[in-house]
């Protein structure tokens, strides 16, 4: 019996080439960037059934099981002699994977796992699910980024025209978690033209400012050199920060856009000539 099992195993070899930092959305694991699974099948003399099922087990960093696929509802694959290529999504079997407790709830809510170290174990089984024909385990690390939050000028704030036409300071929070690679922040400011909504200007206008901040800093001092005392122009702006990785590609955040752009903020320019105007002076600078 032991000999038969060895012969049977010898017919199938499993190679799980998993990126050790795969994309955080598990449904994205179909993308080649996350790696691939290769099952090599050599016709053997003793047992040459080409039909197999996969059993997937997800373990945490301590090796405790946190999720197992249902072998009964697993898809049956018929292997071709030689090399059979699969995506990592095939190895993960997301539609057939049951996670434990809070992780299943988190997966339903976000499509992701909590940040941390995990292990993916894949077993190639016979169709009855009682004989393991090949097995491999690979570790991986999951993390998702939260894009910077714009701090200053705060959304809804009003800036004095005399100051703002010389200097506007933009500040934002760091990318979370801090990245070990050199990331780049680009500050983008759009003028809201008369008759436009803020989001319309953001989606349709060319930015007045589209400049990188000094690497490693979360502040940009803009010298606008724009006339802001006149009532006809430069009265309202919408700004954002775009976060780019070392290759200049947007870092995906938590929003729907995959542009690496933080939730934008609006600020207005007011001419403080009417300094004695009590009502104007007491506009709420932070409206959220």
């Amino acid at each position: 019996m032991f000999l038969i099992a060895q012969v049977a195993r010898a017919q199938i070899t499993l190679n799980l080439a998993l990126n050790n930092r795969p994309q955080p959305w598990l449904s994205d694991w179909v993308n080649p960037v996350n790696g691939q699974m290769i099952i090599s099948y050599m016709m053997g003399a003793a047992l040459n059934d080409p039909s197999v099922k996969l059993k997937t087990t997800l373990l945490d960093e301590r090796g405790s099981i946190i999720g197992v696929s249902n072998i009964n509802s697993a898809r049956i694959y018929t292997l071709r002699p030689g090399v059979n290529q699969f995506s990592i999504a095939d190895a993960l079997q997301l539609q057939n994977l049951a996670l434990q407790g809070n992780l299943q709830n988190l997966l339903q809510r976000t499509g992701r796992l909590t940040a941390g170290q995990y292990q993916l174990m894949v077993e190639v089984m016979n169709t009855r699910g009682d004989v393991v024909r090949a097995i491999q385990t690979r570790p991986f690390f999951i993390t998702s980024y939260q894009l910077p939050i714009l701090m200053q000028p705060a959304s809804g704030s009003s800036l004095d025209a005399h100051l703002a036409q010389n200097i506007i300071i933009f500040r934002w929070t760091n990318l979370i978690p801090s990245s070990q690679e050199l990331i780049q922040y680009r500050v983008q400011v759009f003028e809201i033209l008369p008759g436009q909504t803020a989001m319309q200007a953001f989606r349709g206008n060319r930015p007045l400012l589209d400049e990188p901040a000094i690497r490693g800093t979360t502040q940009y001092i803009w010298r606008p050199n724009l006339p802001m005392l006149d009532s006809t122009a430069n009265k309202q702006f919408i700004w954002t920060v775009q976060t780019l990785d070392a290759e200049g590609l947007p870092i995906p955040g938590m929003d729907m856009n995959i542009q690496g752009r933080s939730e934008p903020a609006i600020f207005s320019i007011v001419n403080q000539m009417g300094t004695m105007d009590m009502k104007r002076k007491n506009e709420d600078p932070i409206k959220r």
Partner: protein
Amino acid sequence: MNYPTKIALFMALFLAFESNAQEKKKPISIGGDMGIWYDGYGLNKAPSSAVPDFYQARRPSNLFRYSFNPTIAVGKWNIPLNFNFSPIQTNLTTPSTSLGGKQSIWQFLTNPVNNFGIRPKIGTTEILLGTQYLKYSDLSTGDLGVFGYGVNLAPGKFRIKLFNGVSQRPVNYLAPTIIPLSDGVTGAYQRNQWMGQLGLEKEGKYFAGINFVKSIDKLSSISSAPLSPIDPQENMVVSFLTKVTTDKGWNYHVELGQSFYTRNLNTPLSSSPVEDFKPFISSHTSTNKDNAVMLGIAKKGKDWEAGAKFNYYGAGYYTAGYPFMNNDRMEYLANTRFNAWKKKMNVVASIGQRFGNLSRISGPSLTKQIIANVNVFTQFTDRFSMNTSFNNFGFNVPGFFGYKSVSNELSVNPAYAWINSEMSHLISGTYTWSKYDETTLNVMTNNNTQTALILYVPTFFNKKISPDFSLMWFRNTAPSITLNLLSATSGVTWEPAPKINLKAQLQYNLSTMAPFTANKHLLATSGFDWDIYKKLTWQFSMTVNLYRFGTELPGSLFTPAYSGSPGYSESTLRTGLQYKF
């Protein structure tokens, strides 16, 4: 059937139905305005072929914008039109349609920069055609313009709103090329959006209703699909909203929302991990479902106002109506506004805290943010007033890869005015102190900023000229960087004739980044507002920027080396004609 056909059919059916409701024809009246605006921009650089390119053009060379916003009243019909459009594409955060900037009529109509909206209304029935910016609620939809058709009905206390349209125009993907050098076009799927609201309302008293918003990317809308990660998406939000205002000045606001979001419609259909929401959503492996809550309470008194709000957005809560919404957070905010000291003092204050990474998918720790702000304005005498404000922002992520930033800003702004028989004088000063400390990977950096501004405004009672003068000083010190700026500005407005107002402003500043010599900058702007006829106004403004770099950007760095000081001159012309009906 495409959208223009649907809109025309919808309009025809509705007019046929409503024609019976019209009474005798009444005279036609028209209000509103129309206009044309032109922005011209020019940039000259010295040296002109500098490498690297040290300054980029920041506006398009020519930009025409047209507006046509009349409100036509015919009998019982009231028909506001909102046409604001430009034939030139200037999109950045949404893709332009092609390398040459050409767009089809459909892409022109659905370009987010353009509005083509009509909202005919009769009685309690309002028809919505073309581009509409519809805000149903904070958790459903409100940010985006949608081009399509719909209706608002308000029979009695019932409120029924329906709309169907396109919130994102289709753009074909174009690959980058080397010859000719091109970044290509990112591409986008057409996003169709359905929206509905069903509620009960008594104006000024209460509203209670349910909002539905569904959006789906149309795969067949483009012939060349964008590359991943721009995948076709689907989203649906259902929210319950209620708002109550009592006679005693209390306001209550509650909204509960649930969203279904499929990140990629190309992933396999699967009822796991999220079950289908039939008949609206067939789940894929990339579908998730989450909730959001907004609560608010406020009380308004005679000389005061106070409120508190609480918001929660689950990490998987998405709505196509607010595509940049920041989720995975919980926050509370308390704010107040009151008068004191015989109404001579006005105070506005708020304090709040925001917690992020509730799901822990970005690390083991919560992010914590504090926002505190207070603004006090005091009118000590008729002549002397003072405004003081203090802002504090703090952000903290504990842990080895943590991050911390604290920003404190104090601003004092006294103003003194005096008057004689011929003129009044106003002197206003502003001093701002700002400190910004940041700790990343256990390395702390400090930013200190000081700003001082003094402003003098004389007003002549018997002259039609009004000048103002200001001086400003700014200093920012940060690790390895010290920036100083000195600026002098003078402006003047002059009314040479009753219908014309001339304006001019001159500003000169020196900015120095130690240890380099100063950059010099001159800004000159002039223009006028002229009521040419009773209903026709012409606005004109011309601005010139002359900028010369100091040793911060030496010409010797360029290839080939430039012997002079690099600089640029920038001219902006903005003019518009506006006609009021």
